[in-house]
């Protein structure tokens, strides 16, 4: 069974949201357009639409998360879903229950939609293969594989500021190797025919054959940032130093940290993004993070509408005309 097809039903409609890879431009655009229609919900006095009324969504976070989890929960609440949120890292699986049994037990509680984050690459596909027909799975990050809703909100943010992807040069800077966000972003940007996707990183943070994902490689930040329209910084985790991938945070900042001086190599209207959580002074200088080119906090807000859009499309109800 191909998991690429697993996401789509026989009519090409989205039934799970597991990876950007395997989707098409039409679905990506539909998600972005739908998300746009939802941004107005946030401005209403009553921030709710009844699209998921009567549906139960389980948020299963086998790994810790702050913003992904809270924006998913807010998105579900605004769609009027009933919500069950589990910190599974401290529950049944540590008592020896298999992941499959966890799925089946939750299914017995008549869950309609699972949002799952798990340390293993491929875990969202695994869930989707084993849930009952009609139950949907949304990937909130699987290992180092994909984090597709994050990529969608990044795309949404870029489109909000830049419109036409076919004319954009976009640089992704940092730990590509361990980043599920970067993989999803690269697939998504390529699906929208982005003019150029650059990846800027030290050799030890690049997986082999990174070019095969459809990117240009740069090992020099200043050269890589030249003429770009969008700079996406990735988080650098401290364990990269202890596992001998990098010598020190300071050396990394000196080589790959985003400073205003370096950002000035990019186009003057370039925007700066970060999926969070950011390490100030490691991958990004505080003044850039808080500067007027930064759209980092906007990304978080857009995360709610994008996740609302994905869930609505999956249940086949995207219209806002339904009102209380």
């Amino acid at each position, binding site marked *: 069974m191909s998991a690429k097809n697993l996401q789509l039903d026989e009519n090409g409609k989205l039934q799970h949201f597991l990876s950007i890879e395997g989707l098409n431009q039409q679905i990506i655009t539909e998600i972005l357009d739908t998300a746009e229609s939802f941004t107005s919900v946030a401005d209403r006095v009553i921030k709710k639409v009844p699209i998921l009324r009567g549906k139960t969504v389980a948020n299963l976070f086998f790994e810790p998360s702050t913003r992904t989890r809270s924006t998913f929960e807010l998105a579900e609440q605004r769609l009027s879903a009933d919500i069950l949120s589990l910190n599974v890292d401290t529950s049944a699986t540590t008592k020896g229950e298999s992941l499959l049994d966890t799925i089946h037990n939750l299914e017995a509680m008549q869950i309609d939609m699972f949002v799952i984050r798990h340390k293993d*690459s491929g875990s969202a596909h695994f869930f989707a293969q084993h849930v009952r027909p009609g139950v949907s799975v949304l990937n909130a990050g699987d290992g180092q*594989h994909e984090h597709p809703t994050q990529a969608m909100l990044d795309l949404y943010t870029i489109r909000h500021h830049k419109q036409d992807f076919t004319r954009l040069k976009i640089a992704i800077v940092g730990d590509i190797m361990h980043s599920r966000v970067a993989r999803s972003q690269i697939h998504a940007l390529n699906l929208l025919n982005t003019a150029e996707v650059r990846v800027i990183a030290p050799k030890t943070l690049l997986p082999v054959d990174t070019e095969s994902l459809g990117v240009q490689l740069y090992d020099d930040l200043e050269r890589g940032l030249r003429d770009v329209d969008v700079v996406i910084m990735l988080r650098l985790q401290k364990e990269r130093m202890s596992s001998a991938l990098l010598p020190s945070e300071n050396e990394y900042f000196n080589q790959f940290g985003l400073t205003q001086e370096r950002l000035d190599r990019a186009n003057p209207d370039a925007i700066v993004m970060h999926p969070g959580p950011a390490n100030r002074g490691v991958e990004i200088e505080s003044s850039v993070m808080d500067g007027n080119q930064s759209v980092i906090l906007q990304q978080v807000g857009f995360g709610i509408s994008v996740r609302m859009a994905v869930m609505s499309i999956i249940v086949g109800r995207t219209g806002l005309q339904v009102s209380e």
Partner: protein
Amino acid sequence: MTILIKNGLLIDPVGASESKSDVFIDGNLVVGIGKPPAGFKPQQTIDAKGYWVIPGLVDGQARLREPGQTHKANIASESAAAVKNGITSLCIPPDTQPVIDNTAVVDLIHHRNAKAGNQCHIYTIGALSQALEGEHLCNMASLKANGTIAFSNAGRPFINNLVQRRAMEYAAGVDMLVIIHPRDSDLYADGCVHESAVSTRLGLPAIPEAAETAALAKDIELVAQTGARTHFGQLSCARSVDMIRQAKANGLPITADCAMHQLFLTDHDIGEFDTNKLTMPPLRSQYDKQALRDGVADGTIDSICSDHQPHEIDAKLRPFPSAEPGISAFDTLLPLAIRLVEENILSIPAVIAKLSINPARILGLPAGQIAPGELADIVIVDPDAHWYCEGKNFASRGKNTAFEGWDFNGRVKQTLVAGQIVY
């Protein structure tokens, strides 16, 4: 009991020939080929017309899961599956639970095999170090006296190169074969797939070739230093094949094998996280697969093993990195061998040699050929029997095949072990 096998195509891996010859069996031995010995009267006649008559296959590495993991399989289930698939001798690596590092475990295995009816010859490979912990040597001479045929650390690391050197020297001192699965555990790290565009795309922790080749280079040097007769098991990389070829050319006392599945599958077959393709060492690239095939064809790789690893269904029903590695391989060993013939990699006698006389000679087993005076371990194969591979129909208790949905030619019709018809 006297048995005549008539009208079959006798495959002789030793003489690298095939001929229409009858085989005469008396008791546990072959007593004649072609024409009957004087006064031979068959009590039973097997008509093998249209079939191959081949020596029983010798599998240099198969895990039967007993002792220790009998929820996966056991000696009775897997020896029955082996003979049903033409395997009449098999070698158990030492990583059972408890480890084969003392004679009691060896006795237990033989006792269980006897209880299962001794359908298949089972040989034990002893641990090079106690509990496979790589620190203290095992009682190798005692294990040898108890019938253990070789020593291996089952791919587990030694605490340092000095202990490995001593273990190899000691084994050589008691005139025993050392089996090494070259593996640098640091470079393996938490990897589960070959390092390539596939691991990059799937975001899976990757295993570079150097995890095998860096260890192999060191291991070859220790063979050169100690002179220990050494067999390298389950090679997976093109560069390993080159290194073995060179080391053999330098006259070192080494031999090598690869697992059958490495000759057919690559990392691309993992598709979208197919846990049945999770193996250790991992499925490598097309280039590596071709190099292994070349090595098999030119003799650099002496033998092919099943690397049989039956699992309970739950072991594979997990996200890819958490699933257990290994393939249930008895049921596909012979049909894949026939496919090597169909794909013009090897002749019929040559592929049978890789699965019989070659491993038997390397491991010092009384098996691998059909000749007067030899044990009558004989398999009758219908090479044209066409079948569709479905794990659920396997003889092995492990249904975890990596070849689900493949079309195969070749099925075992009958198997004799020491002159007894066991299947």
